């Protein structure tokens, strides 16, 4: 049947399901959290944050499409988003930490990306949370790819 081609449901592939589900959980939590910061708490949004949103939000939509029915190829479509998002998030974090000098700072108008609005527990900032979220999603998707290709 042709549909079997689209839905590889071997036991090995199915074992990747929880990984993709976890990635979706993180992406959705991040999406809702960032909407809460911006739309409810009215935190200012810097340019780099917009780019990270652009890569995070589609993940919350695309990943469930690969969960029901399970289609391991969703990893192929989601990984570039997660990877690029991780790159921007790391860049943003380096900017906040001052590793990247002011002169390469891409946003001079509006809210400067090098300032952070909130810090929890003395170290946790929104850019750092973004780095953690993107890197975890990337790692989960890579693991899912390994498992389902075996």
């Amino acid at each position: 049947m042709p549909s079997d081609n689209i839905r590889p449901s071997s036991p090995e592939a199915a074992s990747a399901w929880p990984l993709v589900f976890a990635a979706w959980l993180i992406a959705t939590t991040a999406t809702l959290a960032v909407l809460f910061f911006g739309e409810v708490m009215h935190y200012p949004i810097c340019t780099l944050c917009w780019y990270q949103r652009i890569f995070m939000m589609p993940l919350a939509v695309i990943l469930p499409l690969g969960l029901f029915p399970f289609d391991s190829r969703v990893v192929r479509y989601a990984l570039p988003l997660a990877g690029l998002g991780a790159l921007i998030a790391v860049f943003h974090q380096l900017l906040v930490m001052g590793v990247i000098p002011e002169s390469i700072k891409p946003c001079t108008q509006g809210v400067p990306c090098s300032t952070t609005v909130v810090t929890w527990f003395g170290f946790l900032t929104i850019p750092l949370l973004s780095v953690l979220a993107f890197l975890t999603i990337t790692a989960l998707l890579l693991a899912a790819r390994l498992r389902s290709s075996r």
Partner: protein
Amino acid sequence: MNQKTLFIAALTILLLVFTGGAFYYSAQQEKQASQVAEANRAALIRMHSPTLGKAEAPVVIVEFLDPACETCGAFYPRVKQLLAANPDKIRLVLRYAPFHNGSDKIVALLEAARMQGKFWPVLEALLASQTQWAPRHTAQVALAWPHLEGLGLNMEQMAFDLTSPDIAKVIEQDLADAKTLNVTMTPEFFVNGKPLPSFGFEQLQQLVDDALAATRGK
């Protein structure tokens, strides 16, 4: 299927947390805004502010206004209607919140016009021509001048008054009070010291109606 139930449960919980959090947060903010306004009554009304309506009117609307803000311009005629609908009952006090780039220069223009007793006609002329002197959200005082012609102003005197330190002081005080009262967006209204629960003309109308009803009951 088990997986489907898990997915739907997770999604439901996340959405519930989000909406619950949003409602809780806005309620807290509203409470806090009232408390801030209550604690800083002195910052709400200053002697220097332009006012409209009778001094002994029972309802006082304090409006923080940015002459370059489009929403302020859109609200202005409706606020005037509100005043006209309740003659002698409402006093409007204008405070400046020039948040737009270059808007402080426009405020100086208004204050200079006020020295000649032409504040309200100039304000109305400027709000009506806002799109022409504030392209791309940047107020340009040079573009505003032509819209003041025909109002009977002594332009030379005005140009001189613009740089008056008194005007600078008024702007500085209003901005400081806006900060104290947590005014971050314009227009912001306080009716008898109470801030708007959420932004909108209906909310302002409601607050004014409540204040009018409260004074009638006395």
